[in-house]
């Protein structure tokens, strides 16, 4: 139990520190590397919650796929000019004020509703180990109950592929 607590705080620190560095760095490559740290922290949190399949998906798809795409684009697009200019837009104070407002709102909701999370107690109690592995159960649900959303998601990906190719083409 203690090791869970310690790992949670380590991963939470990774997530938050990576996030803060992502939005404050001047150099886009440094931002991307901080984002990788943050995403790996999220992957660790999945592992702590026995979502092993999502852990693998997070590492392979996010850290391996999306970040590669980002680094490619950073390489293609010349960002040297942008790194020397002003980093925050003129309305940054308004944006920050809006976020503080939203933070107060959500914080109030969580504070008032903290007793409603009695479900949390089930996390401390050790549940009976499931008969099937996490991946197997996910596959069962995904290919039976959620088959239609799954197929729609594949159409979405096809549309995204065609769309991004058309967008990045020089002449159509």
């Amino acid at each position: 139990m203690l090791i869970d607590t310690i790992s949670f705080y380590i991963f939470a620190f990774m997530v938050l520190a990576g996030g803060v560095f992502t939005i404050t760095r001047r150099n886009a490559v440094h931002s991307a590397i901080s984002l990788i740290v943050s995403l790996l922290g999220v992957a660790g949190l999945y592992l702590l919650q026995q979502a092993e399949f999502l852990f693998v998906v997070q590492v392979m798809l996010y850290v391996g796929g999306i970040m590669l795409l980002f680094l490619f684009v950073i390489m293609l697009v010349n960002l040297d000019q942008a790194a020397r200019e002003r980093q925050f837009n003129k309305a940054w104070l308004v944006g920050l004020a809006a976020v503080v407002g939203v933070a107060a709102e959500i914080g109030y909701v969580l504070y008032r509703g903290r007793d409603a999370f009695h479900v949390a107690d089930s996390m401390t109690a050790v549940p009976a180990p499931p008969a099937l592995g996490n991946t197997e159960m996910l596959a069962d649900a995904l290919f039976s109950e959620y088959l239609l959303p799954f197929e729609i998601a594949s159409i979405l990906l096809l549309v995204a592929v065609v769309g991004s190719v058309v967008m990045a083409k020089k002449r159509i």
Partner: protein
Amino acid sequence: MYPITTLHYLVLSVALLLIGTVGVLTRRNIVIILMSIELILNAVNINLVAFSHALHNLGGQIFAIFVITDAVAEAAVGLGILIALFRNKETVQADEIDLLKW
């Protein structure tokens, strides 16, 4: 002994969501705005997986998979738009693209 409850995960997810929102609202560089959107989607996923674990229901993890799918599609199309934009306007600063601004 300080057990980690669902509330811990919710607070962490709120913090990550707010960090991502600050990035979207204040940065000028479009690449970093897209990265902030990834942070926001990850905050959502932390929430979904936390509830999935707490309630012993796999629906949250399934939904997280769909969120990740959407994030991939969003990143691919967004970066495609960015490349087209850079080819036409030679800039990646969000506030310099103000053709439709009144």
